[in-house]
């Protein structure tokens, strides 16, 4: 079902936790749908010095969070904003079609954290022009198997 890379990031997630006095915090998803991601960033100049996450969700949601934090650690804000869910999927060696939304959520959570940082500091990023942290980004396919 999942690649080895996904299982590794799920079983040994990088950067789990919180940052006290974070410069930006973003949370996306909702409990009804079963996925919530929260990302904390610590910014120094325009560099993301530290990033941590907490995720309520399935294996791929946790793995996607872990990979996303790893990908942006130490990057500039502009670089971090260029992160796409496709990169997250690629880095994980692929996700099952019904789990692609987890990578979207990771991208959104990161953007939400940067948005929070930007708002607090009255900064404007071109890449966040159309970003709405409260938008819903879920698009599961409905397939049910019970036994």
């Amino acid at each position, binding site marked *: 079902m*999942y690649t080895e890379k996904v*299982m590794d990031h*799920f*079983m040994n*997630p990088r950067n*789990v936790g*919180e940052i006290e006095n974070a410069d930006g915090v973003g*949370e996306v998803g909702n*409990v*009804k*749908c*079963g*996925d*919530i*991601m*929260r990302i904390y960033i610590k910014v120094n100049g325009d560099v993301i010095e530290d990033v941590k996450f*907490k*995720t*309520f*969700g*399935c*294996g791929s*949601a*946790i793995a996607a969070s872990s990979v996303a934090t790893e990908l942006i650690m130490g990057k500039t804000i502009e670089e971090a904003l260029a992160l796409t869910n496709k990169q997250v999927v690629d880095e994980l060696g692929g996700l*099952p079609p*019904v*789990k692609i939304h987890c990578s979207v959520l990771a991208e959104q959570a990161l953007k939400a954290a940067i948005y929070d940082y930007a708002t607090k500091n009255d900064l404007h990023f071109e890449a966040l022009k159309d970003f709405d942290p409260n938008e819903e980004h*879920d698009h*599961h*396919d*409905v*397939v*049910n*198997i*019970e*036994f």
Partner: protein
Amino acid sequence: MKRIYMDYSATTPVKQEVLDAMMPYFTENFGNASSIHGFGQEAKRALESARATIAATMGTTPETLYFTAGGSESDNWALKGVMRANKAKGNHLITTTIEHHGILHTCNALEKEGFEVTYLEVDDKGLISLEALEAAITEKTVMISIMFINNEIGTMQDVKSIGEIARKHKVIFHTDAVQAYGNVKIDVDTFNIDLMSVSSHKIYGPKGVGALYIRKGIKIQNIIEGGAQERNRRAGTENVVGIVGFAKAAELAEAQLDEHIKRLSGLRDRLAKGIIENIDYSRYNGHPTQRHPGNVSVCFEFIEGEGLLLMLNAKGIAGSSGSACTSGSLDPSHVLLAIGLPHEIAHGSLRLSMGDFTTEEDVDYAIESLKEVVHKLRMMSPLYDRVAGGK
């Protein structure tokens, strides 16, 4: 690595005795049971003896038992077959909100054909209200279909009383007994059951075989037409190997039923207690006593079921979940929602179902593993720190 299977409600391994019984029918006695030559007649004898064996375990006679490809086909046949054949009587079917999809999706299909379906709600333990059932019956009610034991939360309905109500109002009563058969004593007459779906692979028999009990006199249409197999009611070359295996499994289940129930209930209660006492913010789903002997259904708040399953799997434990993520759907199991659990709690569900190869050590290992795994996931959860941030 240790591998502990705790998903017996999903499917079971074929028992060695069952496989042994099947073996001659693959390469030696492989005939078509409808052929008149020796190969065919041997197959026919095996087929009919299997039918007699299984019928006896239900307290019925062979000519009321029809073989199918499994529980889903039996469910589809029972509902579509009876509703379509009894249009002269009415167009109303009563079922529950917690049925297996084999029933629920068939009901949806019947609604599209113009039939009307009432879905009875259940209480927080998963029981329907007998009063509500009786009140739902109208002049147009042809059939009641209520599952014997729920596959997810393990709750067993008061089938005897349901059967009495059906009989009293001259309504046909079908029960999906896929989870019950082999796990509880069933006598179709005692329970006033008119049709009953069962499946081989849930009782240590092979997959791809099931049966539908049809009381004599019940009007039912075919859903698979063709040859005259199964007394003209279900076409297709008989799966003799599978049916022989099913019969052996049924025979073993019947012979060992009391012991099976006693052993499993002990393990079940030990597991449930171990979980509830050791893990806070956890709850035991379903009825505390009136339940499947091997089913433990629990919810852990603040975490999601799929991750839980994967971490348990990494520890060698195979379980299942009504989590939305295991199914790729947005909503968690309709059964957990039906017993009133909010979405966020239903997402964190786990079903561990035990069977004849489960041991006490397995149970204790599962409890220990769960403690660890639930803790690990909660430490990652943005929901947990809200309630337990200070701990």
